[in-house]
């Protein structure tokens, strides 16, 4: 069942002024409850504008957006949507404003009226869900490492128990293990809670690992949407969207150019190795 229904969405900034810019053109997209959708596109392709509609920060210029069974055209609905749709901006640790991690995470739920033991439980739960060790709750965010600060910021959004969670490059600027950790935690959480996840990423290898479907935006238009494996095996689509294919897809393409055809397009290194080994070593199962 879709929890996001976008029909012919167009968004124009500063309409009727010399600064008029159309950031989204005629987008139609359904997102199912509980699915993970990766959203990719070059800088300026409209990704941020699109997701800002989903938590009510922006309203469509034309077209219709329904989120969690409400219509964005309804101003009152739109205003309350932030409680149910969590948006984690890029470099969210820059939005940490409190001197204690606990207070930063508690801020959102406290504003919805949560207090006392219920609030404490909620903060502990969010920290755990984001993979933030309990003892760091009473630290000064400035003293945490980059990866832990990112987790603290994500915990602040998770503490609202959003039904839809939107993350803009949650792993940017983190060491590989920290990036993988954060993404894996989010996918585990999705499995536990049935949260719908929209993952904005340039890192298509991450989309291959964590998402069900992949949508590509190019200059404000939706150029492709479908199962990740299907979209990633179409290098032409990625090229026009200004995106870099995952390493294994590029490897497959280069081998094909040299006359070596793999039976299918691998999306992760271990798959690539198995496929290649099946050609090299007779008897190795592919």
């Amino acid at each position: 069942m879709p929890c996001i229904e976008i029909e012919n969405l167009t968004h124009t900034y500063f309409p009727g002024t010399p600064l008029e810019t159309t950031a989204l053109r005629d987008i139609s997209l359904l997102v199912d409850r509980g699915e993970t959708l990766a959203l990719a596109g070059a800088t300026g392709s409209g990704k941020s504008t699109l997701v800002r509609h989903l938590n009510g920060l922006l309203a469509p210029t034309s077209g219709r957006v329904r989120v969690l069974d409400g219509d964005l055209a309804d101003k009152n609905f739109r205003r309350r949507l932030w409680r149910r749709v969590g948006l984690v901006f890029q470099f969210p640790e820059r939005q940490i404003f409190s001197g204690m991690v606990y207070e930063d995470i508690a801020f959102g739920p406290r504003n919805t009226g949560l207090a006392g033991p219920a609030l404490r439980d909620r903060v502990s739960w969010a920290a755990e869900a984001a993979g933030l060790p309990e003892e760091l709750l009473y630290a000064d965010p400035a003293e945490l490492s980059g990866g832990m600060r990112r987790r603290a910021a994500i915990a602040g959004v998770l503490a609202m128990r959003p039904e839809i969670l939107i993350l803009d490059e949650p792993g940017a600027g983190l060491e590989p293990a920290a990036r993988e950790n954060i993404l894996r935690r989010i996918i585990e959480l999705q499995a536990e809670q049935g949260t719908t996840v929209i993952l904005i990423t340039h890192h298509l290898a991450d989309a291959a690992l964590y998402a069900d479907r992949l949508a590509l935006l190019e200059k404000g238009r939706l150029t492709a949407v479908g199962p990740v494996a299907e979209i990633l095996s179409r290098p032409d689509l990625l090229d026009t969207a200004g995106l870099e294919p995952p390493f294994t897809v590029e490897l497959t393409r280069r081998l094909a150019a040299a006359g070596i055809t793999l039976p299918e397009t691998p999306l992760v290194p271990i798959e690539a190795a198995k496929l290649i080994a099946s050609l090299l070593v007779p008897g190795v199962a592919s």
Partner: protein
Amino acid sequence: MTGFNDYLIQFEDVSFAYPGGGPVIQDFSAVVRRGEHIALIGPNGSGKSTLAGLAAGLLRPSTGRVMVGGMDTADQSVTGAIRRRVGLVLQNPDNQLVAARVEEDVAFGPENLNLPGAEVRRRVEYALEAVGLDRLRDRPPHLLSGGEKQRLAIAGLLALEPACLVLDEPTSMLDPHGRREVLRVLKNLAVKGTTVLQVTHHMEEAAAAGRVLVLAEGRLAADASPQTVFSRPELLGPLGLALPPAAEVAGCLAGQGVNVPAGIINLEDLVRFLCRALK
């Protein structure tokens, strides 16, 4: 043979602590030779940015010495000279752009050196051309893409004709296209003899460098060719660092019983090996 004069930057038993904090860099010794392209990798919080600041003379060591072109960065009388030798590029180019037009932004540095007009123009042309922004010279910087902005930040430093560029994760805020643009510029600069010291989280970028320094909790954990560093997963794994994808595929192939030569770290190496093996 490399002699003393080939050393552009020398770290000699450097330790560093921010005021009131514990040590961030400890007993760090390494050299950067003229014309080298070096990648500096390490987990978040390992001291990479601090080391970049020390190399650029922006920070001074608590103990030990950092020498830039034979000058001690602790000697305040040579601060200006050191700034002209080593340019520092930061993560976010928006923090580094100052003027209303691309060309003026590049001219800002050399004009402040009080150079004659003809020399300023020559340097601006050289820098714009080196980063491929000559055709965008009249644009306001805020209308540039991320990759273009970062190239402009680099051009602003090149106009000072530094011997070395130190870059602190210059591509981490860019999209893949912008990242490629910046890497191409860095590669060209390195080929033409500008020394490049680049902090990065992208193992593919590190694999393209001439030498890799690995930093762990403020200490030097490895200083070797990318082939050597990336053939040591037992060193990188516990630090939360990955292998470049080509090395990962090569490792998985070995795990599948394929006899893989050591030192495969990029796509070209891997394709070459597979073509030989499969034909």
